[in-house]
């Protein structure tokens, strides 16, 4: 079983965001970066599937700047066999990123290509499924439960008020949701081994794309609220305010 995982380096979810001088991006100074949390489910699944199969290869592919090498090493420390960095500043247009990934992955002969369901920075939910479309492969998104056997996939994904059960055959692209597994933490032995694992760096250039970010702003502050009171005695006044002032009940 040959499995690729696409990985993005993103700001830690506990980070407070401030806007950079260009007014279009975030100030990166002092920000801690982590592997995209949804991509960690993909990494874990790839490692588990290879362990179950008893043989095969896992490859992590990340598109980003040189700093993404560190994120790739984290994946290698978890147990992925080798890494590829597609060196690029990236694009606001997910389709341009998908094109670069599809070009890289096409020749790889992968049985499975895994992504996180979305990146927690740009919230696009796009690159995985677009990559699949460009490669002409089946794709199931936001997978929270997965069975792979006999060249076929059965996957469950959460939809509003239900669980959608889908099937497809391999090779396939899947995007992973929380609930699929519990990603392992890199052990010391893995961290040492990761330093010696191959990491190939390939510069890529992306097209200009069809989305232009005009500005990035902090959301308007919520107007100061008020403490209605203390304890259960404040409930009557709260209900009155919700009904007569906020008009929401």
């Amino acid at each position: 079983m040959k499995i690729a995982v696409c990985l993005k380096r993103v700001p830690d979810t506990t980070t407070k965001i401030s806007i950079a001088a260009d007014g279009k991006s975030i100030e990166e100074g002092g920000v801690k970066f982590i592997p995209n949390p949804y991509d960690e489910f993909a990494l874990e699944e790839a490692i588990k599937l290879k362990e179950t199969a008893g043989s095969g290869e896992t490859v992590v592919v990340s598109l980003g700047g040189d700093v993404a090498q560190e994120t790739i090493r984290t994946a290698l420390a978890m147990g992925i066999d080798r890494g590829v960095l597609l060196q690029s500043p990236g694009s606001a247009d997910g389709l341009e990123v998908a094109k670069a990934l599809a070009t890289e992955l096409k020749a790889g002969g992968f049985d499975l290509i895994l992504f996180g369901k979305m990146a927690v920075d740009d919230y696009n939910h796009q690159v995985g499924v677009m990559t699949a479309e460009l490669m002409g492969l089946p794709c199931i998104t936001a997978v929270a439960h997965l069975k792979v056997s006999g060249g076929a996939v059965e996957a469950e994904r959460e939809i509003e008020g239900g669980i959608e059960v889908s099937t497809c055959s391999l090779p396939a692209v899947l995007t992973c949701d929380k609930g699929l597994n519990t990603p392992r933490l890199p052990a010391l032995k893995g961290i040492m081994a990761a330093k010696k694992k191959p990491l190939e760096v390939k510069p890529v250039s992306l097209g200009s794309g069809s989305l232009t970010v005009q500005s990035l702003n902090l959301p308007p502050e919520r107007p100061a609220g008020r403490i209605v009171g203390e304890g259960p005695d404040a409930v009557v006044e709260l209900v009155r305010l919700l009904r007569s002032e906020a008009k929401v009940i």
Partner: protein
Amino acid sequence: MPTVLAVTENRTGVLRKVSFEVVTAARHLADLLGATVDAIVLSDGAVTGTEELGKWGADRVLLATHPDFRLYQPDGFAATVAAAAAGHVAVLLPASATGRDLAPRVGARLGVGCATDVVGIGAEGGKVLVTRPVYAGKALQRVRLEGTPAIVSLRPNTVPPAESGKAGGAEKFDVPPFTARVTVKEIKAPAQAALDVTEAPIVVSGGRGLKDPSNFKLLEELAAALGTAAVGASRAVVDAGWREHGDQVGQTGKTVSPSLYFAVGISGAIQHLAGMRTAKTIVAINRDKDAPIFKVADYGIVGDLFEVVPRLTEEIRKLRAES
């Protein structure tokens, strides 16, 4: 005349509310662009609510009927929407579980990028301009779509359906041939049948302050008293296994914009605030008067939730009984 395509969504033969939101937003955009609105319905037969699409702003309704469209058929839907979108100025979809899967497929097939999870839509110089939350709502990005069509998915609950009384006459739309690479076999009911937090007008969320998973019963009772309300959860209690991850509100969970949000026993970590700060009205109930949640709450009660919540449920029930 240019046309905006609105992609509707149905389940078991009934249009979902988000369809009317998308048609309303498409109408708004079409009026800015001097365009008309086509609404497309993908199904295996008649869909209740189709006759209402004109009311919400559709000039024309396209019926794309196919025996494989009983449930979502990713490849078939993508082929059909891509064919229907040819020559259109914009395509609007819901940013629902289905829409988030479908929009990028259509984009890839038409060779244009998409703007997903949009909360504001406008136009400038004939181009579509959108506002979308990034970093889980910690920042808002303004994006201009240069490609044609402009593909946009709209976050549920951000555009209230508004009537504009258009004709909405229905026509058959031929589903193009497609290769079904993925098959949706069935939709299973979730462990507990419940309203999704992203679509509920009222969300009652609980955190570590609930102390034990069984105490979520208090929030379920409050939600039931409020009527159409969903129960959400903080990351801490989802990670502890108390609640399903589908209920999680926050940066690694769902972003919600209900008209009323209750944060009960939730301190207000930055990643939780990111997921609910666009709620219209926020109520916080917490023992700790210094909890960050009170900084974003419109109304707060400092106190023991085990005393406050049952009292609140009782008062809401009384109110419901009176009105």
